[in-house]
C-alpha cells in the first residue's frame, strides 16, 4: 500500500525553545495539508491544517508554513513544553488521489526539561 518512511528522524529541543518540524510532500496537486501529533500508545491527534492556496496559518503556539514551489511543509511550535514530546506526522489530501489522506514520514520530538 501507499507507505510512509522507515525509522523516524528525531528532533531534540530544550524546554522553552521553539521547534521546527519539516516535511517534504510528493503530490503537487494536493488540496489540504494537515499536521498530526501522536503520543505513545495513542492514535494521531489533529493539530492544524492548511489549504493549498495559503502559505501560512497560525494556531495556538503552532504555525504551519507551506512552500508549494519546493513541496515543503513545516510546523513551528513556540515555547516547546514537555507535553509536546510526541511523533509528528504531516498528511496530504488530493482529489487526484481519490480524496484520501496520505501520511508522510513522521518526526519524533523530544523535549528536554
Amino acid at each position, binding site marked *: *500500500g*501507499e*507507505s*510512509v*518512511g*522507515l*525509522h*523516524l528522524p528525531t528532533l531534540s529541543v530544550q524546554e522553552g525553545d521553539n521547534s521546527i518540524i519539516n516535511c517534504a510532500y510528493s503530490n503537487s496537486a494536493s*488540496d*489540504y495539508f*494537515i499536521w498530526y501529533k501522536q503520543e505513545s*500508545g*495513542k*492514535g*494521531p*491527534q*489533529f493539530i492544524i*491544517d492548511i489549504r493549498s492556496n495559503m502559505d501560512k496559518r497560525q494556531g495556538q503556539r503552532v504555525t504551519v508554513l507551506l512552500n508549494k514551489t519546493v513541496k515543503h511543509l513545516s510546523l513551528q511550535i513556540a515555547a516547546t513544553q514537555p507535553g509536546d514530546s510526541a511523533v509528528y*506526522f504531516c498528511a496530504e*489530501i488530493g482529489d487526484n488521489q*481519490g*480524496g*484520501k*489522506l*496520505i*501520511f*508522510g*514520514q*513522521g518526526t519524533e520530538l523530544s523535549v528536554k526539561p
Partner: protein
Amino acid sequence: GAGVSQSPSNKVTEKGKDVELRCDPISGHTALYWYRQSLGQGLEFLIYFQGNSAPDKSGLPSDRFSAERTGGSVSTLTIQRTQQEDSAVYLCASSPQGRPEAFFGQGTRLTVV
C-alpha cells in the same frame, strides 16, 4: 460525544488464523479510513470509504486483507490466514462531510504468534 471506537484494543492470534477488527466511527461521519502502523514507523494507508462510493482499496497489501462498511457506519477489517508480518497497530479514522481532518481511534494492536 464519543470519538472513534476500535475493538478489540489488543488481539493475539496464532499464525494462520483469521481475525476481524472493528471500527465504530463518529456518528454522521461520511469518510472512514484504515491504516496500519508498524512499531516505530509511519501510517500505511490500507482502505478508504467515502459515503456510498466504491471504497478505495489501493492500499491493501494482499488479498488476505478485506474490509466492509455496513450501513455507512461500522467497519470491519478482516485479515485471513494471518502471518507474523501482519503484526502491527491497526488504526481507524473518520471524517465529516466536506472536512479534511480525520479523527482517529486508539487502534487495535495485533500480534501474530
